[in-house]
């Protein structure tokens, strides 16, 4: 099967920032992304869990974004703007994709 080089960017960010991140990604010309739920976690700011939570203050989501390698820099710049003052983790990895015309 023919595959094409791409980058997989995963951004773990507070739920309340999701809309702002989406908007920034779209502005940066990203053609697609998916948002995965996160149940809980741990970091320098302590332990958290979404269980029983009513407020949107606490939770986080994992935004997965597969892009052509040449787009990754503008994506990271856009993501950084949003994440900057906030907690969260941005990682980038190499991957290959089927159907490259979609990216």
């Amino acid at each position, binding site marked *: 099967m023919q595959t094409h080089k791409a980058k997989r960017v995963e951004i773990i960010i507070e739920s309340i920032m999701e809309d702002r991140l989406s908007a920034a990604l779209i502005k940066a010309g990203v053609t697609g992304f998916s948002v995965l739920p996160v149940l809980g976690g741990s970091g320098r700011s302590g332990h958290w869990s979404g269980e*029983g939570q009513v407020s949107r*203050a606490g939770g986080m989501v994992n935004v997965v974004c597969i892009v052509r390698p040449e787009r990754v820099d503008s994506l990271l710049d856009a993501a950084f703007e949003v994440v900057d003052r906030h907690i969260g983790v941005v990682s980038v990895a190499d991957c290959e994709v089927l159907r490259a015309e979609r990216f």
Partner: protein
Amino acid sequence: MEGTLALAADNLTSPIILFFVLGVAAAFARSDLSIPEAIAKGLSIYLLFAIGFKGGASVANHGVDATLVLSLVAGIILSFVLPLVAFGLLRVMSRLSVTDAAAVAGHYGSISIVTFVAATSVAESAGLSPEGYMVAVAAVMEAPAILSALWIIARSGQQSGEMEQGLVREILLNGSIVLLVGSFLIGGITGDEGMAMIAPFIEEPFQGVLCLFLLDMGLVAGRGLREAKSVLTAGLFAFGVVMPLIGSVFGLAAGLALGLSTGGVLLFMTLAASASYIAVPAAMRVALPEANPSIYLTLSLGVTFPFNLTLGIPIYLALSQTLTGG
């Protein structure tokens, strides 16, 4: 006085409070008891839907008058002013940074809808019938305090106070306000007829749902307290108890000035005394990410909420009864 003590004792053994205690105890004992997030949100939607609708239907019954509008205005003013009081108090009583103090202050200007519901139950048990539009007052008090907190930051020259575009709309249209106000309006429009249709859903099971919700709040509060023991200094703890009392005095003044009924005064005191743990924390995470959430959540949900639930409301009731002669 004796009546108050008896009521407080009675209150302490109501199922609502005991389920909150059960939740806290389970969290401290590290039981794996938990309410799924979707269920907790469902319970909270139910409560907002029910109290909004009931408030509206009651207004439809009793008619709208000038006091309604004045009460809304008073609520908005209180919500703007109380954070300033809270901020001043925090600078004296604690060593919080300006940012943390402003964030906490914002919570105390806003309100806790479950505390409001608990006070409504107490009012009803005491034979009072508060004005139905107090629900609308609760709704308008949610947001202004957030703007006050951001204004404090901006004035202090901290960089983070700048009002991001879209934030104000987000605050004013947050889900709980929209649901509460929407249900209130629909209750008002459909009145008795609407009430007859959905009363079996929003009235009979209400207290039971409230128990489950308080169990959940106890679990969350207990987990928070366990994690955040370190941030809770004696000064902060004292603030979490003193501030609601001060707030309640403001509410009392407003209620008396407006000439509300005894139940209305009680609810105004409770609103002023309560601290937000849903809408304001979310806004603070967006606008003041540098503020430490475990401070404001622990204070609001772990200290002030249980204080109001157990001791505060009976005190407010005693005061409102004495001072309105009700």
